[in-house]
């Protein structure tokens, strides 16, 4: 865990309301693993008051950069989108634990709902480095909200698109698109998912029958981001024991069988 000032290198609008923020910090770039996040202080002062958590969407250890992909949903993210190159952002991170990939798996599936694609982009790079065949199922509500992800992904990754209104790709939820691929013979040996809670829950429940190794990156409201306040509780089970674990410290990635919905 660490603290750093990340200098804003570039901020790019990806599609309406969704941005990529490129921060310069060599140590963070070297240290981060897929699944971890940064806890960012948007600016000094009282509004916004708390830090905001964002998954790390990629790193370039060579250039010493870390990227974050975010969607404007409120005051903090709106301010973030107005940052100028050269400004310094106060960050904690990389925080949390990353995705655990399975050495022997040859076919990996990523399932992304909306901005949930962010941590999976970083993971895709790791999986292709591990010489795995990688499929990304990526859904949004409508075509204009789909981020053109191709340029952030290794070319080997096979992308399948879904929109709820059918304006691009498969019409329906991304989980539906994935089920369709399973029926056509897709044989995932590990699955990683990030997206809205209902999507993750639906996937976890279906997986009770499929029994694929499934890891989920979850969100919860955070204050400290480092495990001190016990604010970001997630109900989990381990054996017969049910209790709360902290998304910031014990996650944000959890095995699907650990989560109590």
């Amino acid at each position, binding site marked *: 865990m660490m603290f750093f000032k990340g200098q804003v290198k570039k901020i790019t609008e990806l599609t309406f309301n969704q941005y990529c923020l490129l921060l310069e910090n060599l140590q963070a770039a070297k240290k981060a693993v897929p699944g971890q996040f940064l806890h960012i202080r948007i600016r000094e002062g009282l509004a916004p008051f708390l*830090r905001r958590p964002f998954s790390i969407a990629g790193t370039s250890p060579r250039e010493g950069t870390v990227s974050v992909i975010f969607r404007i949903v409120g005051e903090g993210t709106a301010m973030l989108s107005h940052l100028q190159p050269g400004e310094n952002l106060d960050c904690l991170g990389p925080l949390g634990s990353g995705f655990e990939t399975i050495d022997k798996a040859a076919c990996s599936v990523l399932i992304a709902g909306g901005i949930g694609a962010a941590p999976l982009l970083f993971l895709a790079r790791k999986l292709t480095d591990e010489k795995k065949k990688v499929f990304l199922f990526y859904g949004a509500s409508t075509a204009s909200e789909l981020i053109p992800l191709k340029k952030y992904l290794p070319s080997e990754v096979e992308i399948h698109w879904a929109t709820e209104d059918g304006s691009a790709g498969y019409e329906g939820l991304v989980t539906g698109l994935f089920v369709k691929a399973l029926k056509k013979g897709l044989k995932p040996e590990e699955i990683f998912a990030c997206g809205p809670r209902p999507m993750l829950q639906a996937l976890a429940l279906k997986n009770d029958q499929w029994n694929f190794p499934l890891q989920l990156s979850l969100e919860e409201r955070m204050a*400290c981001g*480092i495990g001190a*306040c016990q604010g970001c509780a997630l109900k989990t089970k381990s054996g017969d024991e049910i209790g709360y674990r902290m998304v910031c410290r014990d996650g944000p990635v959890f095995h699907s069988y650990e989560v109590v919905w």
Partner: protein
Amino acid sequence: MQNMQVELGPLKLKNPVLAASGTFGFGEEFSSFFDLHELGALVVNGITLKPKQGNPPPRVVETPAGMLNAIGLQNPGLDVFLADELPRLKNCRAAIIVNIAGETEDDYVILARELSTTEGICAIELNLSCPNVKKGGILFGTAAHTIDKLVTKVRKASNLPLIVKLSPNVTDIAELARAAENGGADILSLINTLRGMVIDTAGRRPFLGNITGGLSGPAVRPVAVRAVYEVYRAVSIPIIGMGGIVNVQDALQFFMAGAQAVAVGTASFVDPFAIPRLIAGLHSYLESQNIVGINEIVGAAHSF
């Protein structure tokens, strides 16, 4: 030469800045940011006799210049605290104050007794003011006679310096402060969080899993300063002031209102270096004003 040391009755601290209970865990998380030895004292998470799971999420939500929390005293219980957390804490060489909460008077008495026979603890803080648990805590902390009775019992069970933490969710905090002093408290700490609520308008329901939560951060500071000011007039025991402290100017308000020490809570979530910054800032302030010790300004606002 400026002297940062303070004596709060029987409790001597190397400087007047404490980490507030529930906001600093058991110290471990912050030890990667700075040496906890720098702290005036570390008040650990509220401990109960039995382990406590805490409240369902969401447990925190941002509010203007502050936040609500409804953690519900999630903690591993006394035994695990003593076996696992305390040894680790002792290694960091900070002065350790243990915050305790009970569902019954006996809980408090047992906790206090057990902690008194444990090495490495410099004081006990009775949490009579947690707004987020159904049983105990604040139930003891809102009436003078229950405070007096409970503090008297705990006083008999322990010879450690005894701090009583007061709730601002009362009509007259000075009356309760007097009751705690009567019961034998050595020190008072205030304020705990203010009860509050946020509604999720899209879902048309309370936002927090616990429905209500406790407000902290700069938003509560004026309430806290007022509480310290009133309590200072009512009692003769030392006060640890807290509520929304971020920087030196904030802390000075508390000293001048009558606190001999201050605690920092929520600010550490925003800036993990908030406490060491405040300690350094206070030192420079004393220097620049030619003040020998904090005591010179304690209560200054009462004699203008």
